């Protein structure tokens, strides 16, 4: 028999209609060691059909991802994004926070009006404050729902993000050029 607090946390998570933060869990389950309870619940569901997963700083239950082949309801993507939409979403996710001009610099083409709207309407992208440079451009970042939708525990789980960062491919071109030149100078010296 599980202790009463762990049961309470499990029930609250199960009943919730969105991923819950530690504070939200505590608000309903009462005082207790929420982290310990989460660890116990995660262990109890390990390797089963339902899993407790972490999405950013929130937690929720979902079906195990490896059962997708059994559960997949149709081959259609839940939300069919245009190529521009997919690229823009990837650029925001891997570079956030990022301005519209920076997105356009990477893609080499202007973003059409609807592209960011579609991503924001899907709930995956949000405005993330202004950058303190001349013109104070708005920046964009991903949302907690983005993590939930793409089955990511955090942005660190974005496919290949470590390799891309190590290869300098997430740095602006200017920065990369500087680095190449410094390296050349070192060789010459």
């Amino acid at each position, binding site marked *: 028999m599980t202790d009463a607090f762990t049961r309470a946390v499990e029930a609250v998570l199960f009943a919730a209609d969105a991923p819950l933060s530690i504070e939200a869990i505590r608000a309903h389950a009462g005082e207790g060691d929420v982290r310990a309870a989460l660890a116990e619940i995660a262990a109890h569901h390990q390797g089963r059909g339902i899993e407790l997963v972490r999405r950013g700083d929130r937690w929720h239950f979902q079906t195990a991802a490896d059962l997708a082949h059994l559960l997949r309801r149709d081959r259609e993507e839940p939300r069919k994004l245009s190529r521009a939409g997919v690229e823009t979403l990837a650029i925001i996710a891997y570079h956030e926070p990022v301005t519209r001009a920076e997105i356009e610099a990477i*893609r080499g083409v202007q973003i059409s009006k609807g592209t960011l709207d579609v991503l924001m309407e899907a709930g995956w992208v949000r405005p993330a404050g202004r950058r303190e440079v001349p013109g104070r451009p708005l920046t964009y970042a991903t949302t907690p729902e983005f993590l939930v939708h793409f089955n990511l525990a955090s942005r660190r789980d974005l496919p290949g993000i470590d390799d*891309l960062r190590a290869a300098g*491919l997430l740095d602006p071109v200017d920065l990369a050029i500087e680095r190449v030149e410094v390296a050349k100078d070192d060789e010459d010296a």
Partner: protein
Amino acid sequence: MTADADTLTIDIDGWEGPLDLLLALARTQKVDLRELSILKLVEQYLAFVDQAQALKLEVAADYLVMAAWLAYLKSALLLPRDPEQEPDPEELALRLQLRLERLSAMREAGARLMARDRLGRDIFVRVAPEGLRTIRKAAWQADLYDLIAAYGRVNARTRPVMHIVANRPVMTLETALERLGDMLGLAPDWRMLQAFLPPGAEGGYRRSALASSFVAALELARLGRAELRQEAPFAPLYLRPPA
């Protein structure tokens, strides 16, 4: 996209801008982007745009701008190296290669993102969870002072009210009549009304004495016991005994 080594099927609508077209052309070289021959890529691009124009296809302005820039880059790369030349054509070529690498990396990342197990397609949450609700309840607050002050207020409001008029110093009309009557006889000359007020009268008492003395002056004039004179409205009022 069908590609023999260097040629592409012309379909200008299919490209997301010149950089996208360059990336597709670079892919036909079948090498790592870092090994890319920029010169060869420039040739491919220029040939593509030439062919499109030869077929009288509309070629968007930004593709032509890129073509012009690439033609410049090509000549700079082919000419003997001038160490003073700014910008350095090698650096321009490197920039182009780095931009292609970045676009390629993001295109791949986007594809991998889309291929992940996605909510509603591969993974699922409960369709109709019970949901969590927060019921707000008012915790009413009042303290003892509020309570007794309120009772005092109610009492004060509904208690019968008695009006008491404060005892203020006044000069009655009778007193004024008597004073003016006595004082008029003392001298035959015109004197201002104010001269008849008691010396040292101030404030409310003085105003009261003035008002009563004025009414007394009118009464004495009516009885023929005084004469009044005034040069203009609001000018000083003068009194004297009848001549």
